[in-house]
């Protein structure tokens, strides 16, 4: 090893704390890049492989009823290669603990090998015979259901005792949620069960017919055209929903999750890498400045600029090698962990394709090289300007100038000597001041981010289920009913308010974009919704026309006054152009809202409702349990409970982000404090000679950092605020919108956490200051 490299190693050893701190920041940056990127690609590949292995459908159709023998005519449509009819229906189910929920019953053909969306058997076997049932794994796990257990289910008023023969997973239900509105899985209350086809047909009254189709096509490119044709052809069979696999709920949720993960992989790592590069530049600039004379000596010996630039850049290359290698290594581990967590906990996928993607490893290495070597070269550029002859002479003392506070004499004369040192030092080292303030501002912003996510999710749910939707219960009927049903319900429960509703899927088209959404029909003076626009101005449900949720309007590029084509699936009803009269601020889900009377006349039948909203203190769930036509009963309390369970998982990712922010804050404060202490050895020595104790000197450093931390937090507030607004905007999807007022409390808590990080970093430098030999520093002439 050359002696220059040996010197480098010893310099690293001497600055090990700083070296490790900044390496950790690089590790986090590269780890999050490699980890997120690989996890998301693996997740994408896994889901895709799972769908391929289970022969996933390309098109999904929901209809009223179609005879089995009518399916063969659909093969006339060019591009369709396979059609599978089935019976699908939601039923109410009360589990062993008395918790009422909803089961989606899906029929499966006997020949599973040729089936579309064939099931993955996790335990037990495929159902044989009339009384067997297969239960989706998520529901079985949450409810403790095992092979051999009995389930008493009510179908069309008749109770069937079914035996659990299989615990399964389906590529159709990777993300198991009831509908767009529920957003989060509630595995205890919602699940899928699979029955043998003939039994399901008999039980639901669909002899030789189906109410749901799965379709495979020859070529992906043909899907949109086939969907259009199917909509027309199947209208007579009461098709209510014809969607491509891209619009299928589970697929959309999975894709949304992957998209967000990829976005994180593109943003989070760079925050850390840029911060690390800034720290490295500062460190190397200071090292070069302190080594000015050594560099002069080395040049006098015959070392050239290139050799010396490489020497100092190798300091940061070392950080790059350590940070890059460990970052890539941990990133690969984390990638597997992330992907595994997704397939096991967030989704229901029975397999995991765990590939290593060399391109991300190379990209990680490339980023490390760019940031570390770039920072090293940039930091050591001053070497070029050092002339050996000049470097032998001590640096000219910096020009002393009064700081602006000194001109405020009344104030200045009342400030103690220690504070004067602190203030002068802060305002004279402007670059250091800016670096530290920006560093703390960044730490603050990164700390505030997860707090915002946490509070935002809370706020979103709270706003949605108490401010926007005001009902205690949302009851859905198994099939559309006459409005008189309201009186039946009123007769059995004591309600403070009750309103009928229509919730029905329609396809809306705007220019070249189309979406299938649930349009909700409510009374114009409904007490169960609080429609306001983005500026919180109240919106009225129009007599004709509709309100549209803001997120949906944004995605489809719809504005107030636009007319949308509402395509109906109801037989003998025509498509209609409907004007959007207002955009509703809605944090969860995407819907359109119409006057129920208008909706009945224009699209449905008079006096038809699909459910009711109820405000009541009665035990609505158990009372309505026995009503044949009641499909599902969602209570706000249940939704909140589900949300709290989800938040438990969320705590982990928030804690992780805060730890990352802490490491960044520590690296910035610790490194700059150590650099400052090294630079000011002579100044501290002089103070010691004057009689200052080590603790008194340490206090001046602490005071400086306190002031800079306060400045940093002050700068961090607008930085964090604009970052959060940007993130809120970026994370707004058609399912949920994070556009909420940023609560002031998170800025306060972010500040407290940042101060804690600063204190920890400060304590870590205390030992260093105590070990400094001030007297040696005064007479030291070695370089």
């Amino acid at each position, binding site marked *: 090893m050359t*002696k*220059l490299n040996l010197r480098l190693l010893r*310099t690293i050893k001497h600055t090990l704390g700083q070296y490790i701190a900044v390496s950790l920041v690089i590790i986090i940056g590269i780890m999050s890049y490699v980890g997120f990127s690989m996890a998301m690609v693996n997740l994408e590949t896994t889901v895709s492989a799972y769908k391929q292995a289970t022969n996933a459908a390309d098109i999904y159709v929901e209809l009223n009823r179609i005879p089995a023998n009518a399916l063969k005519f659909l093969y006339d449509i060019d591009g369709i290669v396979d059609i599978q009819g089935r019976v699908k229906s939601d039923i109410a189910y009360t589990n062993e603990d008395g918790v009422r929920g909803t089961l989606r019953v899906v029929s499966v053909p006997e020949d599973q090998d040729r089936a579309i969306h064939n099931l993955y058997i996790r335990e037990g076997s495929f159902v044989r015979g009339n009384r067997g049932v297969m239960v989706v794994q998520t529901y079985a796990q949450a409810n403790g259901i095992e092979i051999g257990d009995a389930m008493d289910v009510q179908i069309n008023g008749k109770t069937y005792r079914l035996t659990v023969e299989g615990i399964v997973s389906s590529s159709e239900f990777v993300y198991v949620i009831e509908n767009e509105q529920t957003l989060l899985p509630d595995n205890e209350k919602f699940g899928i069960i699979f029955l043998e086809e003939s039994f399901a047909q008999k039980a639901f009254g669909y002899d030789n017919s189906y109410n749901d189709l799965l379709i495979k096509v020859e070529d992906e490119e043909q899907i949109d055209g086939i969907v259009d044709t199917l909509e027309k052809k199947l209208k007579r069979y009461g098709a209510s929903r014809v969607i491509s696999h891209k619009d299928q709920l589970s697929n959309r949720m999975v894709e949304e999750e992957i998209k967000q993960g990829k976005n994180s992989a593109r943003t989070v790592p760079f925050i850390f890498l840029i911060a690390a590069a800034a720290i490295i530049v500062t460190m190397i600039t200071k090292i070069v400045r302190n080594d000015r004379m050594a560099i002069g000596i080395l040049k006098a010996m*015959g070392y050239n600029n290139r050799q010396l630039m490489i020497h100092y850049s190798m300091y940061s290359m070392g950080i790059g090698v350590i940070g890059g290698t460990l970052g890539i290594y941990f990133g690969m581990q984390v990638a597997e962990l992330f992907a595994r967590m997704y397939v096991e906990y967030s989704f229901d996928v029975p397999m995991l394709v765990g590939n290593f993607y060399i391109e991300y490893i190379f990209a990680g290495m490339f980023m490390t090289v760019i940031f570390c070597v770039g920072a090293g070269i940039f930091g050591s550029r001053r070497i070029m300007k050092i002339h*050996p*002859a000049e470097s032998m002479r001590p640096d000219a003392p910096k020009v002393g100038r009064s700081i602006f506070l000194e001109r405020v004499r009344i104030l200045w004369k009342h400030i103690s000597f220690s504070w004067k040192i602190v203030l002068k030092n802060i305002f004279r080292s402007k670059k250091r001041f800016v670096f530290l303030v920006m560093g703390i501002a960044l730490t603050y912003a990164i700390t505030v981010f997860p707090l915002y996510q946490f509070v935002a999710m809370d706020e979103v749910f709270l706003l949605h289920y108490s401010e926007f939707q005001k009902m205690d219960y949302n009851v859905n009927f198994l099939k559309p009913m006459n409005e008189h049903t309201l009186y039946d319900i009123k007769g059995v429960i004591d309600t403070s308010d009750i309103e009928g509703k229509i919730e029905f899927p329609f396809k809306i088209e705007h220019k070249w974009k189309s979406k299938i959404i649930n349009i909700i029909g409510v009374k114009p003076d409904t007490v169960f919704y609080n429609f306001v626009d983005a500026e919180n101005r109240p919106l009225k449900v129009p007599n004709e026309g509709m309100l549209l949720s803001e997120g949906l309007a944004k995605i489809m590029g719809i504005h107030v006054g636009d007319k949308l084509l509402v395509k109906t699936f109801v037989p003998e009803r025509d498509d209609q152009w409907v004007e959007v009269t207002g955009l509703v601020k809605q944090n969860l889900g995407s819907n359109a809202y119409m006057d129920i009377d208008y909706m009945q006349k224009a699209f449905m039948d008079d006096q038809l409702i699909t459910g009711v909203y109820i405000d009541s203190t009665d035990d609505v769930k158990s009372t309505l349990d026995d009503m044949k036509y009641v499909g599902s009963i969602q209570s706000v309390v249940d939704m909140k409970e589900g949300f709290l369970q989800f938040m438990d998982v969320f705590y982990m990712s928030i804690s992780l982000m805060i730890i990352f922010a802490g490491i960044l804050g520590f690296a910035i404060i610790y490194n700059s404090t150590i650099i400052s202490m090294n630079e000011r050895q002579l100044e501290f020595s002089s103070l010691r000679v004057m009689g200052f104790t080590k603790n008194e000197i340490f206090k001046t450093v602490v005071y400086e950092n306190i002031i800079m931390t306060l400045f940093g937090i002050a700068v961090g507030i607008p930085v964090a605020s604009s970052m959060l607004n940007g993130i809120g905007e970026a994370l707004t999807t058609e399912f949920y919108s994070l556009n909420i007022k940023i609560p002031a409390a998170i800025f306060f808590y972010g500040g407290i956490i940042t101060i804690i990080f600063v204190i920890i970093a400060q304590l870590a430098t205390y030992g260093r200051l105590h070990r400094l030999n001030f007297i040696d520093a005064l007479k030291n002439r*070695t*370089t």
Partner: protein
Amino acid sequence: MASNNFVRVEAVKKIYKMGEVNVHALNDVSFEITEGEFVVILGPSGSGKSTLLNIVGGMDLPSEGRVFVMGNEITEYDERALTLYRRNTVGFVFQFYNLMSNLTARENVELATEICKDALDIDEVMSAVGLGDRSGHFPSQMSGGEQQRVAIARAVAKNPDILLCDEPTGALDFQTGVTILDLLSRINKDYNKTVIVITHNAAIAQMADRVVKMRSGKVIDNYVNAHPVATERIEW
């Protein structure tokens, strides 16, 4: 056969600009040095002797005039040629030793020899400067005299043609200073190196083969000392 214009300085001027004022650090300086001479450049602070040493050592360039070393005009050299000149032709010894604090004595010497073409045996040089048994020590574990010996070993081990010493005894007590001068004298004789020492200490001039006296940026005297005295007889 010794070359009698081994180092030739011709009408060298060096002007620094300090704010609005031009400072004439060297003003028309000329002299010659013969190969193998022990030269003392004597002058008070501010006389321009360090500036002169830096120019001869290829660390600085004159504003006017020419400097020849071994027949080559180093004042014509570009940055790269000057670096090679410093690497292979000259060795520096500084008043405050300027060792690398995180390298041992031996490593400090190796740092210099690693980049030059024809380095001497390091153990031999370390023994020659009397530090054979201290080569594993760090600068902070050594006295000033020992550190200066390391600095000399570092300069000598490169096997340069000229040894340039800037106030080598300036930071040392009398006894240590004499030892260092004795070492430089021995290197001059044993290794046949041209040694140029700059100092403000007139007593040191007694041991020189040639004395160049400077004042206010000018050479005021340049003579060959017919009877150099042994270092042990020097006192100040």
